[in-house]
């Protein structure tokens, strides 16, 4: 089954030290060949290597370019607005219930930091909110920092495990990242939210549906130039977790939170949105959140 993303396979980091681990091109090719993914094999074959080890500088340059292209997904699907629509009432609920300030909003796997930079550019989340992007990949974090500097945006980006920040996040956020966590590592991802300082999480990702693969293919075929962006964009939509799986994993991993899916359908129509969001809150903030979100509460699924 073609559910491997090239960008996941050509890059490896030690989860403890975050040191880069050399990736053997032949290993990556073998993986995609075993999955009968000839397209991915062709793309990887074209990548530079030194003695069968993928050239890390070439990989970095390629991934920065691919993230720049893929930012179009975030722009056209208005990820900044989507996130802000949820964050504002969450932050309002936390303020009303006296959460210590500043509140740390940490974007897990921020990449080049589009959403945080967008939020910083809008500047309306409040001065008591600290925007921090965390990612393992120094090249992407470096690019996020460069872009934030160019536009004088008040957001910081770090090469760090988002769940090992000191102090920990008040609120964890991710966009189009959670599908990278598969099987047991999805449960483990949610277990990392359980620090007492963490009050909420918001994770936005593709919503699987019968039309998602075709829609994603069309979107990427028309807009992306880099074959890697075209490939991974489509695979992301195909392998995204259904809401039920996100709820299950967060229930088992982060049992100290109540949780609900948000924005799965277009109003009252049975049309699935391209993206859905998982919202998790400590139970004591739920009522304040429901008050703050107002009429948009109709977009929430059942709390559990």
């Amino acid at each position, binding site marked *: 089954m073609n559910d491997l993303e090239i960008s996941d396979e050509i890059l490896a980091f030690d989860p403890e030290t975050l040191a880069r681990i050399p990736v053997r091109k032949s290993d990556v090719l073998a993986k995609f060949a075993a999955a009968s993914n000839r397209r991915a094999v062709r793309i990887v074959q074209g990548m530079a290597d030194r003695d069968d080890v993928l050239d890390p500088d070439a990989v970095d340059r390629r991934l920065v370019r691919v993230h*720049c292209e893929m*930012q179009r997904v975030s722009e056209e699907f208005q990820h900044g607005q*989507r996130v802000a629509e949820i964050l504002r009432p969450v932050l309002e609920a936390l303020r009303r219930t006296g959460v210590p300030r500043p509140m740390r909003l940490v974007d897990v796997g921020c990449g080049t930091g*589009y959403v945080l930079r967008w939020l910083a*550019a809008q500047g309306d989340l409040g001065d008591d909110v600290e925007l921090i992007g965390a990612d393992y990949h120094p090249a992407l974090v470096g690019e996020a920092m460069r872009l934030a500097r160019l536009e004088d945006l008040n957001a910081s980006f770090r090469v760090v495990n988002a769940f090992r920040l000191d102090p920990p996040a008040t609120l964890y956020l991710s966009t189009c990242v959670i599908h990278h966590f598969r099987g047991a590592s999805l449960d483990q991802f949610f277990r990392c939210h359980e620090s007492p300082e963490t009050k909420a999480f918001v994770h936005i990702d593709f919503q699987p549906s019968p039309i998602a693969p075709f829609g994603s293919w069309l979107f990427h075929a028309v807009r992306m130039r880099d074959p890697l962006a075209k490939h991974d964009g489509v695979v992301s939509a195909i392998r995204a977790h259904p809401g039920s799986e996100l709820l299950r994993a967060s229930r088992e991993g982060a049992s100290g939170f109540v949780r609900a899916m948000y924005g799965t359908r277009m109003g009252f129509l049975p049309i699935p949105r391209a993206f859905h969001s998982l919202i998790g809150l400590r139970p004591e903030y739920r009522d304040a959140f429901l008050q703050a979100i107002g009429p948009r509460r109709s977009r929430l699924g059942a709390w559990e």
Partner: protein
Amino acid sequence: MILLLATLYVLASIDAAASGYAAAAGRSALIRKGPHYRRAMLRGFFAGQVTAAVSLTLILTIVRLSPDPSALRSDIARVALRMLQVYLPFATILAGAFALRTLPSVDIRSLTSTLVFGPLAGIRPLVGVGGLLWGVWAAPRVEIVVGGAVLLALWLSLERALGYFYRAGEVV
């Protein structure tokens, strides 16, 4: 005929500016991209003017070299009218989607992207070819078919040509 060619020129100029936008899209990861896209669209517009001048020169040359310029002019007018029958509805749908996009709704904006701009950008070359075929069907003369094909190829290659302004792999 002048009005028909002028309408085609206006549509082609807008298409050229849009080609500038398309060539620039995905090359800047900044948040405030207004200047980036304005420059790109202006570049596309000016490239479109050069292409329009080449197109007009080609049409005038073909008419001048024709043994029966008056009949050829009338055929060109018929072809242009039929091309507009294809291109104008296409442009109207896009204009309608742009109008919808001004509404402050994440859903509506996302829908215009997925249901209109994406698919229409994908079929744009086919619409170009379809409009030309529908046009020349009314007057299938060799000089119109060949001239039309050359001009269409010029216009459709504009986006790719504009892409060369950006160095390979450059991220703004």
